[in-house]
């Protein structure tokens, strides 16, 4: 195991029009672990993800990926570096087929070869990207849907497609924003197994999740976020039974 965590944030701050949304957040996700962020709606979880993945600029603090300072890196550069993510509101490409959705991510792991395509030469890496796509499709059970335009799929399936797309980046760190919303029970169960397989491959999985059953079943570390701050973090067995956390999450202790 390397000394530094896969993804690490220190004193991260983000404001929108002078309203502080993310407030001095310290955060670390280790390879091979499933880290879950929970918190009420509007706590700033998605915004935190956006800051970590380069979608939003950061007002203060820094982000480290595999020990290197990547503060201010753009989202596409981070993706090519191995920090992949999904969005809370699905961001698959509706006019592309499922396979092509994955392919976009697989073949843009490097920027080389774009100009070759413009002048009509074939992409040297296209074989390996197609292999990646095929492997991921099979792993997620999407092979039968490979040639269907993504725009025709139901939301639950789109979530899986989006996870698949992120996996095609060959990431070492995976940020999933509410990946299980819209999945039915059987799909959730399969998804749960997938998460463990990924963690077993030494991926750092970071996930925002509302479904407490899934959290309890999967999380190695839980961060509780409220009003832009990390209230408490630790193993779920310690964190989730705390009365103050339950107040935050459900309004009153039980």
């Amino acid at each position: 195991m390397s000394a530094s965590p896969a993804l690490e944030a220190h004193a991260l701050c983000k404001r929108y029009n002078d309203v502080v949304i993310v407030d001095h957040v310290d955060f670390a996700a280790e390879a091979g672990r499933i880290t879950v962020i929970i918190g009420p709606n509007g706590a700033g979880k998605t915004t935190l993800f956006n800051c970590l993945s380069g979608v939003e600029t950061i007002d203060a603090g820094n982000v480290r990926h595999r020990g290197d300072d990547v503060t201010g890196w753009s989202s596409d550069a981070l993706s090519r570096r191995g920090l992949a993510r999904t969005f809370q509101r699905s961001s698959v490409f509706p006019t592309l087929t499922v396979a092509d959705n994955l392919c976009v991510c697989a073949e843009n792991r490097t920027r080389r070869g774009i100009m070759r395509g413009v002048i009509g030469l074939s992409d040297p890496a296209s074989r390996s990207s197609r292999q990646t796509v095929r492997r991921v499709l099979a792993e997620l059970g999407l092979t039968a849907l490979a040639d269907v335009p993504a725009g025709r799929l139901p939301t639950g399936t789109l979530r899986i497609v989006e996870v698949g797309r992120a996996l095609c980046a060959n990431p070492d760190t995976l940020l999933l924003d509410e990946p299980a919303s819209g999945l039915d029970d059987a799909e959730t169960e399969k998804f749960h197994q997938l998460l463990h397989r990924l963690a077993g491959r030494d991926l750092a999985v970071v996930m925002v999740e509302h479904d407490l059953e899934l959290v309890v079943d999967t999380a190695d570390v839980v961060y509780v976020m409220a009003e832009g701050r990390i209230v408490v973090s630790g193993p779920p067995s310690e964190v989730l039974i705390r009365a103050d956390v339950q107040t935050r999450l459900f309004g009153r202790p039980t």
Partner: protein
Amino acid sequence: MLMLELALAGLGIGAIAALAGLGLLVTYRLTGVFNLAFGAIAMSAAYLQWQAVRVWHWPVAVAAVVVLLVVCPLFGVLLERVVFRPLQRRAAAPAERLVASLGVFVVLLGVAVLVWGAQARLDAPSLVPYRQLPLPGGVQLPLSTAVDLAVILLVGVALVLGLRTRLGQRVRAVVEQRELAELQGLDANRVAALGWVIGCVLAGVAGILMAPTLRLEPYGLTLVMLETMAVVVVARLTSPFRAILAGLVIGVSQAELARVHPTGHAGPLFDTLTSNLFVVALLLALLIVHRFDETGSTDSGTTARLTSRGALTPIRGWWLVPALTLAAPLLFNAENRRLALAVPALAIVLVSIVVVSGYSGQISLGQAGFAGLGALFAARLAAGTMPGFGHVPGVAVLALAPLLVVPIGLLLGWPAIRRRGLFLALTTFAFSVAVSRFVFDQPSVTSGLTIRPPHAFGTDNNFYVLELLCLAGAFLLVRNLHNGRVGRALVAVRDDEPGALASGVDVRRLKLLVFAASAGLAALGGALLAMGSRAFDTSAFDPIRGLIWFAAVVVFGIDSAPGAVIGAGVLVALDAGLPEGSSILVIGVCAFLLGRMPGGLLHSVHRFIDHSLRRRGASVRDLVPIAGPRPARLTSAGRSVALMMQRRTAAR
């Protein structure tokens, strides 16, 4: 003394611009549609006024009342009912609404050219008789300026008061959140109709006031009116007060600067800049302001919704249609073939729009600028008067001219990286207006330029073959941009930009690439267009022409290169066979109907054939496991947490 009088004259123009801008702003705030047609509405009102006064000999005041208080409001209501309400009802993307307003624009323009002809008229009736009002201190105030100022004051006060009332507050709520407002019992359709009525009336007033100070001419007057949108951009589509102020300030500065004539090299440039201050302001404002305060959803989106979503099974041999369109002229007689020379050239220009707007989803209304620059560079290269180049022979011109335009495309691609939708549309349009005003309209740049086909391709037949070769080359490039890795990445950017970024797509580089390629293609098409007509005619590359081209591309399928070829054929044929303006009218009417033919004309035909002739294979539903909504489990979640913890520990 002179300074004061100039300022007063400038105030007049400024007030008219402010009026037009206010109309645009109010329509936008009340309907969420940036009404590109407002320039054409102003122009049409001016023509109607002319018709009533000069042809039917109505008294000026009666004509004005009928045009402004009857025709314009009715037209506004009609627009809302027929064009925009259906779009609103099916929650059309902002890009679709922009294109619909472009359709209205093109229809009005076509009607004007068809009915009144494209030639200029100098006798636009003035609303008020020419009279000077003496002011203290010996200054003379023209009565017309006084009226302009009075009108803008009146409208401004009415607006401010209107927004203060309770009704005004609730009306603003409609714009921000339509559903919410409907819950409050406010009829959003009525509010939208109000927005269209106010917008049309103000556009009409501005047009009727502006026409006497200029010539009455369909393209020219429309363009001048469109330039006044500088006022709205400066106001960031929000503040009416700022719009009025901007109009007046630009008007006065323009009048005052007209007095200064610096000598030397910079002289002519300075004169051009000052006499086109609205264009300068528009360009600067678009470069400085990054984002509008847009209504509704924050992302005015791309053209993704205009494309043929979800592929249909291709009809075998359908490519024969564009191929035959292109082959037919080889069999024409000499006269018709000369006319047909425009088809491949125009097809290349239209394909350049397909590349940038169809494949990658960036609305570009500025292709006329690139096409014109291509023609200009080709003419000067061939004549040996391009600075820095000697005499360039024959066909090499066709390679070099587009290459010279590519860097300019890169330059425009730069702002496009951070701009999308409406904002990008306006920026590209402003670019084409600026090129037209500051390059094409300069006698020192364009006068006396001749251009003809390269020597070896002198006959019409040979030149046509050369054009086909160029088109084939263009299609090769386009194919590379549409297929494979680049094509997928472009569609990804078009469909979902954050998603594309998250997938590692270098969006910045891709956009630059696409703008550069598209600029080069447009330049090639423009050069061929000019060679075919054997003249560098600046009116062929008027910014308005760019808008019509864009509408045509949307109609024939924004992401279909073969569609662009068919579109070029149809446009040229209509122009050759029917009175001037008919082709514009046809495009406009089709753009109108786009709401009912998503994906464009050809795609709709295709879908129709598909549905009537074929049976679908396995439907998607059969393949997808049915995903029902999941029961909420959060209600008792707090209590069950401890339980689940125990279960988990036990399981390990």
